[in-house]
């Protein structure tokens, strides 16, 4: 609990949220959150991404004040948060199951935070109307909650969380229950509203696409631990470890030993670049994105590739805008996944067909082998 950054707790503090060494132990075996540390600048949109059970909700609830960290400090606007009761925090939250008040109308739901936070009663109707407008629910103010569609309920929850203009907006997988089309629409809606209001936002999801689309920054969590914090592009291009490479995008993994120029897998040299310094000879793992592997007819044009190998197509999946090939590489005794665009131009490679596969050294990222 070093007081390093809490010292600059001024009104103009550009840092909205800081977590320092935050643990949450429910006493049920593994810790739900382990030594979480991150900081988020004001006005940014952060997404916490991770598989189910990785501790995302727990982290969010600690920020909202519903749970107290077993260890560590959370600072909101430069002030330690544990001293502030949840109902006094300037934090708006959209819950996973929305938790709208079933006995109130849309309007009453949105007005509730204003009443509880003692806003001027004459100001309330105007504010409510403004925020219902913002989430495009202007005509629905008198409706009961259960007379709304899922997407409309979503918007009420957002309006309720934003109407009192909190310093911080928290979103706990509020889109998980929606169908894909509506979910993607709401993702863009979140982004629009967030940019319009400039409110610092922490969003939680297990959907990597959502994280890439809506965020300024992403934190990937696994088993209670933060794996990486980066921009969407940075996270995608430069995953910090194989877990992140596996969780975001489609990657193939090669297990072998570090050499001077890459990785030797099953005796075959594969060109690649190390993410961390790894001494030659040590066990290492390479990861390569499906769209960075090129495929061609045997002896076809793979000029510019640093590594070229032969293999057999073991399966292919038509995804509309592209094909996903699974190609078995006997030299490496492994199968790689390859995205191949514009398949309309030529007949796809048949199952069992022999093909050439290649990649650039900069695209095979080499990580130390997991020693866990």
């Amino acid at each position, binding site marked *: 609990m070093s007081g390093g950054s809490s010292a600059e707790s001024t009104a103009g503090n550009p840092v909205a949220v800081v977590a320092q060494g935050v643990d949450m132990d429910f006493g049920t075996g593994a810790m739900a959150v382990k030594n979480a540390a991150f900081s988020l600048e004001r006005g940014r949109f952060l997404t916490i991404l991770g598989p189910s059970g990785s501790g995302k909700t727990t982290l969010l609830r600690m920020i*909202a004040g519903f749970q107290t960290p077993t260890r560590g400090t959370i600072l909101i606007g430069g002030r330690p948060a544990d001293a502030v009761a949840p109902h006094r925090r300037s934090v708006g939250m959209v819950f996973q199951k929305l*938790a709208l008040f079933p*006995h109130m109308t849309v309007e009453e739901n949105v007005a509730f935070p204003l009443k509880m936070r003692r806003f001027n009663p004459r100001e309330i109707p105007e504010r409510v109307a403004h925020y219902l407008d913002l989430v495009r629910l202007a005509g629905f103010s008198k409706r009961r909650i259960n007379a709304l569609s899922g997407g409309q309920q979503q918007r009420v929850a957002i309006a309720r969380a934003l109407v*009192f203009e909190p310093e911080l907006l928290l979103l706990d997988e509020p889109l998980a229950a929606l169908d894909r089309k509506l979910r993607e629409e709401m993702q863009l809606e979140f982004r629009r509203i967030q940019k319009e209001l400039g409110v610092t936002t922490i969003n939680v999801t297990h959907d990597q696409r959502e994280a890439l689309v809506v965020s300024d920054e992403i934190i990937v969590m696994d088993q209670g631990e933060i794996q990486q914090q980066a921009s969407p592009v940075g996270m995608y291009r430069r995953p910090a470890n194989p877990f992140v490479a596996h969780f975001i995008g489609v990657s193939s993994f090669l297990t072998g030993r570090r050499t001077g120029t890459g990785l030797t897998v099953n005796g075959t040299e594969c060109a690649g670049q190390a993410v961390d310094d790894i001494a030659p000879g040590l066990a290492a793992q390479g990861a390569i994105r499906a769209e960075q592997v090129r495929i061609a007819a045997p002896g076809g044009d793979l000029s510019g590739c640093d590594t070229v190998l032969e293999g057999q197509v073991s399966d292919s999946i038509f995804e509309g805008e592209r094909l996903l090939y699974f190609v078995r590489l006997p030299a490496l005794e492994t199968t790689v996944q390859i995205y191949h665009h514009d398949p309309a131009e030529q007949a796809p490679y048949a199952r069992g067909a022999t093909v050439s596969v290649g990649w650039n050294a900069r695209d095979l990222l080499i990580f130390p082998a997991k020693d866990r």
Partner: protein
Amino acid sequence: MISRSQKIVVWSLVWFSIITLSLPTLVVLGASLTAGNMVAFPPQGLSLQWYEKIALARDLQQAFLRSLIVATIATIVAIPVGTLAGLALSRFQLRFTTAIQVWLMLPFTIPLIGSGIGLMLVFGEWHVLGSLWPVGVACAVINLPFIIWSVSSSAVALDPDLELAAQNCGAGRVQTFLHVTLPAVMPGVITGSLLMFILAMNEFLVSLLLTDARIVTLPVLIYNSIRSIITPDLAAVSVVFIVIALAAIWLLDKLVGLEIFLKSK
């Protein structure tokens, strides 16, 4: 998919249940409309003479009034106790939850005569027998599990994060309870209250044990009369009971909607 033969079986069962459940009601309704002097089904001629008679009978009127008072007291006692208990049981992690659930099963396992005698001993010890309020309190006590159930089934259907959402909106504990928890379980409270009212209104055994000749309630009065002679006026009184029960269901439908009642466990 339900096959044709399954359909036939299901519908036969449904109709069988509907007929057997409503048969006594139909019989009593018919008997009350008789023009003769005997309880008979089908009725001998149609008339409302027995309704006229019960409307004018002072003892019936007073017993009816007493039953209303007992039911009102029982409901007033049961609402706060049952609501708080139902909420506590479903919204907070309590210790002894199993013990409490066993206790909630008691009305089905302990014969009413047992609890009735127990209450009679307690109230006798306190020297309060002979007035109406102990009967009301007793009805509240023995039927309490019903309102607790009603409230907690309403409460477990709520989003577990509802109170957290209220806090997040800036509501303290008391405000959360008053503005969110309580109104959100109101359907369960209303259902439970109507149930308590009807059950207390109809309560016979406990009333029999706790009342004396001066303060008989309507079910006890009916019982006393059928021991001597069964006349069609009793059928008319029974119909009045049925009408009250129907009125309660109608009210329930108006206030909270029957689907909530049917959904609740």
